[in-house]
């Protein structure tokens, strides 16, 4: 009987580990449900949903700055989110503050034109904090319900770039009368590195929520369970494709079902 139990435990651990939940959080979750005396799939499902529902994502109003590592999907997500909010009847304004990468301006400009989103795109080489400042001071921004701001990708290990981002967010907070929200965009295929990424980003710019992209592949994105358990970081939306409509609000039940499938 005990060997059967051992086998089930291994099976559950394997499911979690393969989903990128990570060894530490996997052990904690398995221990928690074993201690409650019931090591089975249903208990596991409930525990995962509970972990992911504990912290509420922020409501998006006013400036929302999207930040995150290189290539995670920030620019595409700004476009999708702008589209989603517009269709909900909100007035959206987009600020493009990636003034570093080749053709970043052209990429966001093309998206905004395609989706008919009101926008102000900084040109390559401009100071990103100034672009955000100018954008937020504009009439269009003041009249919008939500102002989405795209930033250049950067790795948390680059202190200078993190300081640049800290300045961008500080300038935004100073020139806006009201709350500003920072959301972090993570690639759904990211493994345990996500923990360090979110920890450091939190130190510099305090993101209040995550958008996890590229979950239309085979990656499960289970690292968000570790991020919820260890850092209390909630998920707001999921990116599930490259099209304008491929952004869905985060639903813990649906997400957990896909991990356990």
């Amino acid at each position, binding site marked *: 009987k005990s060997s059967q139990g051992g086998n089930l435990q291994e099976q559950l651990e394997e499911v979690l580990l*393969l989903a990128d939940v990570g060894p530490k959080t996997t052990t904690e979750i398995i221990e928690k449900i074993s201690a409650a005396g019931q090591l089975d799939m249903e208990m596991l499902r409930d525990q995962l949903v509970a972990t992911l529902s504990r912290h509420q994502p922020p409501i998006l109003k006013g400036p929302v700055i999207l930040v995150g590592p*290189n290539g995670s999907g920030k620019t595409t997500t700004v476009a999708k989110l702008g589209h989603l909010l517009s269709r909900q009847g909100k007035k959206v304004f987009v600020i493009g503050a990636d003034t570093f990468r080749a053709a970043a301006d052209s*990429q966001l400009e093309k998206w905004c034109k395609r989706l008919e989103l009101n926008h102000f795109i900084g040109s390559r080489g401009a100071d990103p904090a100034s672009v955000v400042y100018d954008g937020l001071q504009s009439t269009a921004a003041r009249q919008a319900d939500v102002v989405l701001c795209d930033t250049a990708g950067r790795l948390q290990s680059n202190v200078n770039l993190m300081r640049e981002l800290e300045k961008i967010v500080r300038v935004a907070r100073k020139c806006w009368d009201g709350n500003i929200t920072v959301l972090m965009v993570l690639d759904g295929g990211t*493994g345990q590195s996500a923990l360090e990424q979110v920890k450091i980003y939190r130190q510099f710019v305090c993101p209040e929520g995550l958008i996890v992209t590229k979950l239309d592949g085979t990656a499960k994105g289970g690292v968000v369970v570790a991020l919820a358990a260890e850092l209390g970081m909630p998920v707001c939306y999921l990116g599930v494709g490259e099209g304008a409509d491929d952004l869905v609000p985060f639903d813990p039940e649906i997400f957990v079902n896909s991990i356990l499938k």
Partner: protein
Amino acid sequence: NLSEKLQKALGLFRNRGRLSEADVKKGLREVKLALLEADVNYLVVKDFISRLEQRCVGSDVLTSLTPGQQVIKIVRDELTDLLGGQWQSLSIAERGLSVYMMVGLQGSGKTTTTVKLAGYLAGQGKKPLVSSLDYQRPGAREQLAQFAQGAGIDCHNPEGEDVIAGAKQVTAAARAGYDCLVLDTAGRLHVDDELMDELDQVRQAVHPTEAILVLDSMTGQDAVNVAEVFAKRSLVDSIILTKLDSDTRGGAALSVRSITGCPVKFIGTGEKQDKLEKFHPDRMASQILG
């Protein structure tokens, strides 16, 4: 780090004799945890640990090392071996144009790496041309053209919307004046059959000297799924791991190497055009172990 954890688990006394089975079990438990934390695929870890078990049990402990140091040495050597042992250079076409085709998932760093690789080839005395076959991402062709220009690399993006026709056209054009061509392709999911078929058709049209899978080094357990599918379709001759300047442990390196048997030849260590380095299996092994 792992070395400290092993010292703690296995004690600090320098042994005389062999590694006991108890030592090995304790040590490998720590190694398994380290590899999982480093994002090595769970199934690859299981397999690796059982291989290690065979090598460790009864192995002679060098009297100059503690049991912990001995386990680390065996693990590091085995890992370095599995990662390819030593650096493998790019293939060059026996005659005529060398064609390098960059493939991979969305956002992995293909466009950036296309220019970096061309820069490396230029440094080797070659005359490279880069070209974008990404006709779907907004601004993709511009991104390659701008980045290439900044790096002093020639770029020719064929007009039109047919990827296969464009690939054929630029490959023919490159023969006049260049000895190598680096092709950037659109990011795609390994489970998107239509786009994977398209890539297959490009490969059959241009006969690349090397098809290179560009993979984000912070990829977790999914790395094997991606690599396996690309490899099954003969779309991986070698691998480039990007964004290693992120301090990620990079366990995906071991996962993809195990699954495809293909060598990792280069790593991306930054956004600028010169941030491409040769892949050193021994350095990667130490990084993975943490």
